[in-house]
């Protein structure tokens, strides 16, 4: 694995949180992810970039086994979180997903009130002892999701009645509320305006202090701004993985270079 070696050379001081080896993903016949091996570090932000349809979402979904919900998909290879194989038969995907939260590409608020949307995770995981604590958790999550000011007066209004960007931030708040160790974000800012984007980026930066964050983005600028590590995918392959600065200033693979400079897609 040529790509992998690059990344191994660049290990920083952080321990490895997620280690993927030779991951293959198939949708029925389609081979969507080929031979991807990558080490994602703790207390770091890792960005996945690459042209549309290259498999970023697919790979991201493997990391918390959300792929299990797509009947046609099949995952091969091993992915370890904290050294434990998450595809092990003994692993409970539910527990895994509590640990590895996710924000989806399309905002998908529940058809419930804004409050209930956020309180949902803490409730099922029993994170709050009482209503007051829950209120507090919800408020903190909404603040971190940079949406508190907009919705604080209508917490009981349905989450589906928000604008696209508001819905997306609500989903971020919802994911943050369960306090995951790893947060997977699939283009979390694509529906957001610059200010909200800045707020989310700030949040990501804050999260980085305790958690590992993986973010899919189409914006090189964003990747450059928020991430420490960047992985470039192309046609299902992990082409290059390394320190963000290196990737953007000094890409090793010609494909990466041409993508960053805007020549392939």
């Amino acid at each position, binding site marked *: 694995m040529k790509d992998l070696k690059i990344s191994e050379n660049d290990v920083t001081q952080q*321990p490895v949180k997620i280690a993927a080896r030779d991951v293959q993903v198939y949708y029925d016949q389609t081979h969507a992810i080929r031979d991807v091996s990558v080490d994602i570090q703790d207390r770091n932000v890792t960005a996945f970039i690459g042209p549309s349809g290259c498999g970023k979402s697919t790979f991201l979904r493997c990391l918390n086994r959300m792929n299990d919900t797509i009947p046609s998909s099949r995952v091969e290879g091993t992915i370890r*979180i*904290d*050294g*434990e194989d*998450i595809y*092990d038969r*003994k*692993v*409970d995907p*539910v*527990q*895994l997903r*509590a*640990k590895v939260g996710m924000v989806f590409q399309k905002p998908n608020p529940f058809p419930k009130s804004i409050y209930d949307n956020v309180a949902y995770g803490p409730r*099922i*995981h*029993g*994170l*709050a*002892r009482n209503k007051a*604590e829950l209120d507090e*958790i919800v408020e903190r999550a909404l603040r971190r999701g940079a949406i508190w000011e907009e919705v604080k007066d209508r917490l009981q209004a349905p989450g589906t009645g928000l604008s696209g960007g508001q819905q997306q931030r609500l989903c971020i708040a919802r994911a943050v509320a369960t*306090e995951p*160790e790893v947060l997977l974000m699939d283009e979390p800012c694509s529906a957001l305006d610059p200010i909200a984007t800045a707020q989310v980026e700030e949040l990501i930066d804050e999260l980085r202090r*305790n958690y590992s964050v993986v973010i899919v983005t189409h914006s090189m600028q964003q990747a450059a701004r928020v991430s420490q590590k960047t992985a470039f995918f192309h046609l299902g392959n992990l082409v290059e993985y390394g320190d963000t600065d290196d990737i953007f200033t000094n890409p090793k693979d010609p494909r990466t270079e041409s993508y960053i400079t805007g020549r392939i897609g």
Partner: protein
Amino acid sequence: MSEIPNPAAPIADPRGASLLVQDARTAKRNRAEGRFKLYGILAICIGLLMLLVLLGTILSRGTGAFQQSFLTLPVELSAAKLDKKGNRDIEDIKKVSTFGYAPLMSAALAAKVEKAGIETGLKPKQMADILSKDAAAQLRDFVLQNTDLVGQTIEFEFLTNSRVDGYLKGRVTRDSIANDKNISAEQLDLVDALIADGALNKRFNLDFITGADASDARPEAAGMGVAMLGSLFMMLVVLALALPIGVAASIYLEEFAPKNWITDIIEVNISNLAAVPSIVFGILGLAVFINYMHLPSSAPLVGGLVLTLMTLPTIIISTRAALKAVPPSIRDAALGVGASKMQSVFHHVLPLAAPGILTGTIIGLAQALGETAPLLLIGMVGFIASNPPDGIAEGLMAPNSAMPAQIYEWAKRADPAFYERAWGGIIILLVFLITMNAIAVLLRRRFERRW
């Protein structure tokens, strides 16, 4: 790899715990999950078990109806009796009533008994009692269709009396006939001898599937065929009316109707119609279709119309639920490319709602197929032993019964042989139903898709 504990994290946080070991809370939740799933499996199993029990009951009681005992005898179609003028004119032969055929049969049976060397103390008339009361009619029908055979001796398969048939099927035993004045032990001796001779045997009874009803005195001659056609024509009417009207009404209510009190009234009304006892639809049908519109009574057309009114609410309710479930973004997408509301509904929403619509249709038609009460009031329950209709028009207008009505009638009749036929009829009804469902289910599967 262990994490530094996070002081800000709340108590129940499983932070840092191994994924390979389930924490207590997850284990508890997983047990709840297991239970939940188990309830689902249990529910399905209960449903299927009940189905199995019901089908088992039906099959074990009803299969007998598809078998029938026949006695094969050489009969001399004596020209002297049947065609006294000797000109083989069908009109003249018709003049001989069934009473005129009875002696031919007794004679034939007596001859057979003699030829086979069976000893019996019975008189020819008593011997002939083991034949069905329908036997004479059978023979007469045959002769009327084959007038050229008059004067010859033919081998003819006669239906036997229901008691004899029951004896062959094990329903009637020598013990059980102790008080029975319809059959005697000597007659059973004769039956045994004829069985030994090979003249009397049991075989598959196609007439049960194709024939018409027979009166109470002749259970062995009763068949389901004509009633089946009656049901078929009714279902055609129901399908042709209830499905389009139901879907049209649902589309209007769900997609076009302004949300105001008028549509609320219609909506409530429709759910309410679903709760109207089916016999009330019979009252309505009698008043509107027969007394007001002067449609003929006992006609499958009227039955179909009544059942249409009865099924409409079921179809409308399920169709509306299905339409409601289609995500609004699909409608937006269609409107966005310049489709009209109507086009967006017919091109996109309706196909997506098709599985739900078909489910409603399956359930609605199943209900309509098995319904008796409303038919009672429009004259489709009773003794309607007409011939199979010649065409669609006659099929719709000529008096006919329907399968459930026929079953209901048979179940009421005194002779236990009818009871067996009622269960047999239920088997036919179910086969009919399953065929009907299978078509809809196949269609439904083509439309099913999660998006």
